[in-house]
């Protein structure tokens, strides 16, 4: 399928740029220097998360694109989304899914910084086949050549980090405004996604019908499969439920606005509109699927979360050497070795004794 006209007009693009700015500002406003230090404090979790985000996700995206024999533009877009770092949306969902918000934030920070190196490498690696395909088509029709604009991608990633830094400055200087920025960011994100879907619908009414069904499956499946593998991969390597849920959500939920920024700044027609369209679809579906997954996690995670909370509060109030001894048979098998799930040194010691 080809786009006869541009998917987004100039004013839509400005709106999108504004949204990216607001969301990244909100992301920065939610971060403090302490969060950066926290990355060093839980290296294991962050490393597993890194493997899950930059190992699993691009592979999943590549597999979907290959299995369903995607049009190269869609394939590149899907792989691009797969290589993205995490955003603040996942932190909020993790909070509600009773996951470790600290780990989620650490992973967001680590992946955002690492994306500068990982994204060009991974993109180059996984998209080489599709790029060659487009290049061949374009040379055949004599419209030029096509390569992945690695330099542009890196510079647009750096550009996106500017409002994040700005947000962090706001957080430091005007905490009240920072909170507002955080709230507004989430709200703006949803409004703009709805606006984009709506304009696409009114302007290119037939677009929804013309889009191949496998594109829908890909946009929907990428997130869901990411949640699934993130959850079981982290479990397989022995992470406790609290971290499992954080890694699962962080893996599945990518930083959509960064995708928009990279596509707008680094890619051109004829692939840009198609890539944008897939990014819009992904962003729409991920809100719905992650809400659903969050509700599942929330109810299933109630017990281990309660144990974690209670133990943490006991250590906060009764001293860090206090050990909570639950009656026999109360804790489940997985929690019994580490009721605090590795977050509280005192409680861990009790098991060793």
């Amino acid at each position, binding site marked *: 399928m080809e786009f006869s006209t541009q998917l987004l007009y100039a004013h839509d693009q400005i709106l999108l740029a504004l949204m990216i700015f607001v969301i990244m500002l909100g992301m920065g406003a939610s971060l403090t220097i302490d969060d950066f230090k926290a990355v060093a404090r839980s290296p294991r979790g962050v490393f597993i998360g890194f493997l899950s985000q930059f190992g699993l996700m691009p592979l999943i995206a590549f597999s979907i694109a290959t299995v369903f024999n995607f049009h190269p533009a869609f394939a590149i877009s899907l792989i691009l989304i797969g290589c993205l770092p995490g955003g603040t949306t996942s932190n*909020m969902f993790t*909070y*509600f899914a009773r996951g470790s918000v600290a780990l989620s934030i650490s992973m967001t920070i680590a992946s955002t910084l690492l994306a500068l190196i990982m994204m060009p490498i991974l993109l180059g690696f996984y998209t080489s086949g599709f790029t060659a395909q487009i290049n061949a088509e374009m040379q055949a029709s004599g419209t030029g050549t096509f390569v992945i604009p690695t330099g542009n991608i890196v510079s647009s990633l750096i550009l996106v980090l500017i409002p994040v830094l700005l947000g962090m400055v706001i957080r430091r200087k005007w905490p*009240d*405004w920072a*909170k*507002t920025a955080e*709230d*507004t960011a*989430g*709200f703006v994100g*949803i409004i703009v996604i709805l606006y984009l879907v709506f304009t696409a619908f009114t302007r290119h009414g037939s677009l929804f019908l013309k889009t191949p069904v496998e594109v829908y499956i890909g946009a929907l499946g990428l997130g869901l499969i990411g949640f699934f593998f993130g959850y079981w991969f982290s479990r397989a390597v022995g992470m406790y439920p609290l971290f499992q849920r954080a890694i699962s959500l962080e893996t599945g939920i990518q930083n959509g606005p960064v995708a928009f920024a990279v596509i707008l700044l680094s890619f051109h027609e004829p692939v840009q509109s198609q890539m944008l369209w897939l990014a819009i679809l992904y962003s729409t579906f991920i809100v719905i699927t992650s*809400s659903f997954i969050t509700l599942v996690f929330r109810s299933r995670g109630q*017990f281990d979360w*309660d*144990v974690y*909370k*209670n133990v943490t*509060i*006991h250590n*906060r*109030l*009764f*001293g860090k050497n*206090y050990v*909570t*001894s*639950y*009656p026999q048979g*109360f804790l489940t098998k997985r929690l019994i070795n580490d009721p605090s799930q590795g977050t509280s040194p005192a409680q861990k010691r009790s098991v060793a004794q």
Partner: protein
Amino acid sequence: MSKRIVAENLALFYREAARCYGDLPAFATRKRALEWHPVSYRKLYEQGLDLATGLIELGVNAREHIGLFGDNRYEWMLADYAVQFCGAADVPRGTDVTDSELVYIINHAGIRFAFVETVELQKRVLELRDQLPLLKEIILMDPNGHTENGVKKLVDVLNLGSGLRIEGDRRTEDRMTDIKPEDLFTLIYTSGTTGTPKGVMLTHSNIISQIKTLPGIHNCNDRVLSILPIWHVFERVIEMYTISFGGCTYYSSVKTLGEDLRNVEPTFMASAPRVWEKLHERIIKGVKSSHPVRQILFHIAYYLSKQFKASEYYITNRYLKLQHQSRWKHWLMLPLHILRWVMVLPWYGFFNVAVLERIRLGAGGALKTTISGGGALPAEIDQFFNNVGIPVLEGYGMTETSPVISVRPSNNLIVGTVGPPLPETQIKIVDPVSGNVMYPSDQFPYGGRGIKGEIWIKGPQVMKGYYKEPELTKQTIKKGWLKTGDLGMITHNNCLKILGRCKATIVLSNGENVEPEPIEMRLQQSQYIDHCMLVGQDKKFISALIVPVLSEFHQIGIPVNSGKELIVNHPEVQKIIREEIRRMTSNGSVRYQQIKDFRLLPDGFQVGEELTNLHKLKRHVIQEKYNHVIEELFASESI
């Protein structure tokens, strides 16, 4: 994962708790904001046994009444454990007890042994000692206080018992198994009445039934914040209930509540309407002082939540149903509500997560449920908390029913009602004048639902009676049915709604009872006052509606032909009445019975209208007729 322990009596219940929950913290005492001292179930039990042995050694008999005068603290609980292990009953009261109440209670209950919490209270009891011929031993709870004049320290009694137990003393074990279900566990004197306090006898089977039947799913991960006075049976039952699932009770206070909510992050809390009002006030203040954009976001979130919840309650049939609703109207409205629910859902979902969650963090953020009792929760406060997502389970009860009669469970939370009665509890709605049963009855449409009358209850929680008051007991409990003195009705979805009182007693929002009749009688002795009625149910203070004797004012120089309205609004008249109130109530009245404000009514009370044939006030008639005046009286009441 939720489990509750039960036993035949409270002593065995405490033992079972120690066996099941061993080293888990049972109670935590605040030293500083982030420094609390926990005591485990096992330690509490063992110390309880030691103290009980010490008490037995001092001469405490089974079934005797032990004074327990103090406020919430670990030693209170320890003393209660010991008293139950002795097979005795405690007579609890807070440190705010007045001297005359102390004398009355100690003599009426025949108290020989009494615990006092503080050095001040110790001093007061010692000063009253010659009026207390029966009192033999005083035991001071405060471990840091100095004792005098033969007063013993709790620690010393405990050490005495501990020594005996090491030598093999097992008298407490015999006492524990000897307790019968109908034995008293406590004797609570109702507070604040102008008449003599009444001793409510509550038995082990009363409290065990409450522990068994209170709705709720909790387990030993739960943290309970305690702020109500422990000597109120409501707080006491909540603490017993907490023990039953192995939770930990954290002793907070009104002053440190905000801080403690943040640090303890309680999952469950019981409180009185006042606490909710204060919390509501604090949240609103927080919103108002926040950034304007955030204020707007809050209002949007609150609006959406209100719409969403209203539809949800309609769809799930959980709304206040005072009148029967025809089926066709229901089917007509249902699709509209479903439509609204679906349309609001995604927006509500987002705002709930992004905005309302922060509001909930102000209340600790971990509250699963909260329970409000001890007075009516104002409707707007009730709705506010339910809309922001902190479900408040409002309950209804009285000391005489140890105390819970009904409570709305979290899965059937109908705002505006106090829920269905507890299991094994029956409710009758009776016409207060004729004595006819209106509910349950086949003679009325819908089985008598939606008809107002006095609430009568029968169930395992009803008290044994008033101590040494067989006549009063007989008047209150007839054939197992306890007359509550409250007006209410059963809604069309089988919940109880409280509509006021038919007994004269006024219960202030702080839980104090005021008997209005003696005060009214005194006021009516004034030459200027024809009739008067005190009001203030669920308010912070009492006020009076006064019908002045108009002719009296002509004599002091106000023109004879003045209209009634003119007279009652005359500043001179207002001043005279204010003086009269002060004069008539100046002797012997305690603080909360002072009349804060009044309104003069131009029209007198008429027999057949506001008065019965015997010239007694028809309180609910006056209440309804002058509702606007009463509202005006309390409009200035700052929350």
